């Protein structure tokens, strides 16, 4: 079941796509990720991940309106698919389950 599992970075990108709603295109995603994670995120990496997510069917994309700022080139906006949403919910649920299994004692000892 390799296809449905999410990598750590893939999950972050997917979450950002969801958070940005209508403004989710590569550069914006890249900025948002840098701001929130504090690590420098390369555009090329984001591009590659988005491409992979699309291949997996977790996101879908369409070209937007042309703007002057990008040398007249259109943006490609990304949106979660049903599968994408499910994958995120899945991932969160799995984590919550695991979290719930940690006895509170563990934290106190360390």
């Amino acid at each position, binding site marked *: 079941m390799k296809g449905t599992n999410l990598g750590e970075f893939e999950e972050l990108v997917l979450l950002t796509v969801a958070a940005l709603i209508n403004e989710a295109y590569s*550069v914006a995603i890249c900025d948002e990720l840098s701001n929130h994670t504090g690590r420098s995120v390369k*555009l090329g990496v984001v591009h*590659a991940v988005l491409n992979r997510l699309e291949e997996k069917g977790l996101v879908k994309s369409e*070209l937007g309106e042309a703007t002057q*700022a*990008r*040398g007249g080139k*259109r943006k490609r906006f990304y949106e979660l698919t049903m599968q994408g949403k499910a994958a995120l919910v899945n991932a969160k649920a799995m984590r919550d389950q695991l979290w719930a299994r940690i006895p509170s004692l563990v934290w106190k000892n360390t």
Partner: protein
Amino acid sequence: MKDQRQHHPPSWALQFVEWYCKPGLVEDLTGDLHECFERNVQLHGPRRAKLIYIIDAFKFFRSYTVRRSIFVNLFMNRIMIGSYVKTSGRNIMRNKLFSFINILGLAISMSVGLLLIAFLLDLRSYDRFHKNGERIYRITNILTSNSEENGKFGSTSIKTGKLIREKVAGIEQVTTMRSDFSGDAKVGDNTVPIKGYWAEPSLFHLFTFPMVEGNPETALKDPYSIVLTETAARKLFGNQAALGKALKIDTLVYQVTGIMKDIPFFSHISFEALVSLSTAEQTNKGDKSFDAWTNMWSNYVYVMPSKNADMAAIRSQLNTLSTEENLAEENDKIQLELLPLYNIVVGESLQQSEGGPGFVGPHMSPVLLWILGGLAFIVILSACFNYTNLSIARAMRRVKEIGLRKAIGAGNSQVRLQFLAEAIMISLASLLLSFLLFLILRPLLINMAPEMQRTVQLSLTPAMVAVFILFSVAVGIIAGFIPAIFFSKISPINAFGNISSMRMFKHLTLRRTLVVVQYTVTLIFITTTAVGYVQYKNILAFDLGFNTTNILNIDMKDNKPDAMLKELSEMPEVTALSRSLITTGVGNAWGGNMKYKDSRDSVLVMTNHVDENYLPLHDYKLLAGGNFIARPATAEAVGEVIVNQQVLKRFNIGANNPGKAIGEQVTLNGRNLTIVGVMQDFHYGKVENLMGPVAFTFWTPDDRAIISVKIRSTDMPATMARIGSIWKKIDRVHPFSAEFYDEEIEDAYSEFSTMIKIIGFLSFLAISIASMGLFGMVVFTTETRLKEIGIRKVMGASIGNLIYLLSRGFLFLLSVSALIALPVTYIFFQTVVLPNFPYHTPVQITELFVGLLGVLLIAFIMIGSQTWKAARSNPVAVLKNE
């Protein structure tokens, strides 16, 4: 915001992305890159932004972005290149003669290119060792006197430096250098002549001249401080520590306050010592003109604006500054300009102050470099033509190969690549040979002229080798371009069908044109050499208006000439002796302002101070009056002048009648003088200058002296050795510097002889290359027509007929080139070159045809020998094998 709009990402990187990227992805990908680029322009500036753009463009080259077909092509090409190398290698080996002609021709022509590249790289490396070099500028003065533009000078006044320091905002460092500090430095018994500049402490902030010992902040502060280079210090003090020691120059004692590293070879400023500028201020205390605005002949001001300074603002401040200063001046107006440090060596030509101390740093005008580059390019192109011609001529033999390649699936681009690969292989092979030639030619080029030795070293660097290889690949591409296009167009159907139907009849014109162009260029080269050489000889033999044969000019440096004169006059070989201030006719000049009756009408006349023997020794022709009558001992007592006709003409003295001018009064530099003699006009400057007004006044012992010795000797070397030993007795420090007048004249025109040598060499190369090409063509055509010749012979054609038949075409081409080349050269000389020389002799027909005859002779031998061989071949041997 508007400003940033102008920046665009590098277009080639954009095209690169568009080329490799899948069509579906390309739009948003390039859009993203563009957005990042604009952001980076704001954040890091346009340069960084472009760099990041390029890096990103390459980073996006990933498996998911790249089009499938590109991978396939790249893969295919990698396999095919091996095959191309193999077939090219075989092809080169199979046609040994053609490969030899191509490789040798390219090697010869490329060696010129290599020399030029090495030369350019050397010139480009000038002054790059200064850390802040990009920000350093030298002040250029534009002098306008009496509303007549006098040209641009690299020198300026001391006042300029001071004013810039006080008034101009945005300048971080200013430093003034005053030229021609020279003298004999004495330490104990050791005397060494030393040359350098007066300089300021800020010099060490501005330039990167590292100090070995001493404090750069204070070393040039106090008067009578001197900073020596390591070499100079070693010469003076041997291995002892020099810092803090005293040394004596003339009558003044200086203290050594610093030792600095030797000046790198590639520096436009070079010196052995720096003396504090405050010393010059002290010694010139009484002289008001020392820091006058118009005293701009021997100082150099360098400025370094602060980082991110507004250059436009600095320029306008300089303009205001000079406008203010010009208000106080009556005649001379000076404008200031900034010349970037890196443009000093290769940049516009600036004037030297005439008669004053020279700042003869290395300099090369871009125009000259372009001309040399153009000539080298033509020679290289000629060798490329050989390749093109011979490849296409041999095309028939390879048509089948290409047809087969195409039939099994090679595309046009692959055939093109194959032929380019072959050409590049040939050019890389010739690079090896031409590199050997480069090593042989290098010392010849450097030793060609003394200026060359001072300007370039041409030593190999890794960068140079890289440029060489790039260059040879470029040559290969140029040479292989036309054959590649030609072969890629061959269609496989024709290739296997009747070859003669698709023959290269269309391309015959191309080949003929190339041969004509080649020979035209060659002929232009060689006739230019011939005409230039004759003109140069004419200049040397030119009647200057005075006699220069067997006259030795001895530069006395700072010694009094009396002792030397006495010794010389005792030698039997010496027939006459005279003293003068400068040597004329070789470009030296010494000027003064002359006035006649009208005190407002002053004219710059060229002067020389000569003694009573000077005129007879040099056979100056006097039209009226006679030699100097008085023999004054001081400059103040001089009251007589001998002028030339031009002076009379200019002032209309005695209605232009020499006889009536005698006894008239003129003033020269404010001193009243009586005309005692009138000379016939002669050439004071070089032959290219018009004859102007000249005045001779009497030489006095305060002047520097050049002794002219008229010698009549059968054993010149012995006489010279004797004179040299006399010099040794008088001056132990300075080397004996004497030269025959005729040789001095030759040196004065050395730039012409250098130019002629270069063009002569290039024309030699052009001839060899063109001849080799022609030879190849003749061999090829005779080979392909051997059968025809055999049949013609059987039918009864004579050898003479056959030779005529075979060589007819080539002779026609040669005459076409001659018809183009000769008029072009003639017109070029008559309208472009010779008008610069008002006293030239016209171009003679003989000079024009000498070169033509030479080239034709070589061509005839080439054509004749081959056609002769073919025509004599036995028809039986040729016709029997089919």
